């Protein structure tokens, strides 16, 4: 084609195509977020956020579901962060390139791409039935921890590996042991990256519904112990929508979820930006 059309014209046409694809992507997001907020914002007020559901969620608020989401996400992050950061430190500071490391990487990759419903099945078979924890905040949170683990691991590993080697060498030269160096130099220096990973893992846990569908139960009350059943926000939205209970409350719930994700995106971007500026400033 370009044999007959001058390259300059082809360039112009292709620029148009590229701009169009970028703008389409932008438009998709604006339409989805705009529409959800447009339908949901009128529903969201303090009464909705802090109220109890009435008539299994047909009306009333979503407070117990917000609390459920916070609880399961907290458990997920509390369990996954030490495992993920520990593994990242080991992979980047201790391990060489051997079969075990390759296996660990493959394991973490597999974990990252296993469908969430499989985590849900596993959570049901292992936490709920085999360990006899039952449908509870704990079972749901632990299942979500498995899903957040690879996100936290890979973000931490990238962050630790990007630290200037001279920092660690300086510390070792002063007579610090390897662990002292990691604890006092490497981890503090890579903290912004690790934090970003933890927040991303949190985002994954907050947004997940399929993995908690058969692990957390579907209670309407605020869970008061780890063993209580609960209903995180995405699950509530799913139940409202598929059982056709209340479209209005479904839009409200969707709005709360979208706002949470927007906050997470803004926070992680600010963190990364500040970190970059700081590193370049040096």
């Amino acid at each position: 084609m370009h044999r007959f059309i001058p390259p300059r014209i082809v360039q112009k046409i292709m620029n148009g195509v590229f701009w169009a694809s970028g703008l389409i992507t932008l438009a998709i997001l604006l339409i989805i977020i705009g529409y959800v907020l447009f339908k949901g914002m009128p529903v969201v007020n303090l009464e909705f956020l802090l109220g109890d559901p009435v008539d299994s969620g047909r009306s009333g608020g979503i407070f117990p579901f917000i609390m459920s989401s916070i609880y399961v996400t907290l458990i997920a992050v509390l369990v996954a962060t030490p495992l993920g950061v520990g593994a990242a430190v080991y992979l980047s500071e201790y391990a060489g390139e051997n079969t075990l490391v390759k296996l660990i990487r493959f394991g973490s990759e597999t974990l990252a791409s296993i469908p969430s419903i499989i985590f849900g099945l596993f959570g049901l078979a292992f936490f709920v039935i085999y360990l006899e924890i039952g449908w509870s905040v704990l079972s749901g949170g632990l299942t979500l921890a498995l899903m957040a683990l690879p996100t936290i691991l890979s973000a931490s590993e990238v962050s630790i590996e990007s630290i200037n080697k001279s920092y660690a060498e300086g510390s070792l030269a002063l007579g610090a042991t390897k662990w002292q160096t990691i604890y006092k130099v490497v981890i503090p220096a890579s903290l912004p990256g690790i934090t970003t990973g933890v927040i991303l893992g949190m985002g994954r846990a907050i947004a997940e519904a399929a993995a908690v569908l058969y692990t957390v139960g579907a209670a309407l009350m605020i869970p008061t112990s780890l063993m209580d059943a609960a209903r995180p926000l995405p699950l509530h939205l799913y139940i409202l929508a598929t059982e056709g209970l209340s479209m209005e409350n479904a839009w409200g719930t969707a709005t709360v979820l979208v706002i949470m994700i927007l906050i997470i995106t803004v926070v992680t971007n600010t963190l990364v930006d500040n970190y970059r500026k700081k590193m370049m400033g040096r």
Partner: protein
Amino acid sequence: MSKWDEEYFIEKGLLLTAISSIIIIALIIIFIFREGIPALQSAGVFNFLFGMDWAPTDGKYGIFPMIIGSLGITALSLLMAVPLGVLCAIFLAEIAPANMRKILNPTIQTLSGIPSVVYGFFGLVLLVPFMRTQFGGTGFSMFTASVILTVMILPIIVSVSEDALRSIPQEYKEASLALGATHWQTIKNVIFPAAIPGIITSIILGMGRAIGETLAIIMVAGNVVQIPNSIFDPVRALTSNIAIEMGYATGVHYNALFATGIILVFMIIVLLVIANYFHYKKKVTIGGGYL
């Protein structure tokens, strides 16, 4: 305890956290298989995979229509998401001015963070009625599901492809431009071919996400167990089958849903192995030199 003992225990402790992902994967596989194998034994692997009927009340467990459903939805959504995603990635890596990138990158991040149930709900309320008036039928269809999935896998294709395009050494681009090629010719003949392994990886990752998506698909695909005659027919995906029926399944039915899970895990592992293969082939040869 001396300083060196402490170092030793810390290293072993960290090793333990590192192998946790292997242990978790092993546990997942063991438990999914433990619960799923009884169904494969009672139905027979061949009948389970290629059986046309799924009727748990009659003891018929054939998941072939759902395999077709999953693959069909995935293929359709890739057909839409790959061109748009790759073009968008090239736009971000090569064309877009800095301020446009500053808007688009968070946009893509946000798209990837939005919960899948929100997409599903959006599809259920807006897309399904739209499809019903445009194409007839109920509006719940393979096509509707793949439109929603397109939006969901777009971010992963864009971001991984963009990384691949950015990792091409600047010298290659400069050499091409210095030879008098236009920017488009450079993209088409130098940058894009060099980034192909990374772009394929992005497509495979998108495929993995599409095959694994559950609740969003349940909300818009119609969930009828059948081999579709057209893309506007309702279908049921493998993932949906598990999520819909697990609530009330008992006995062999319960096992059969785990067996459906085994097939899913198997599909994902095959995809991962292919992705890794392309990852190792990342060093492509162009004109006798390595990139």
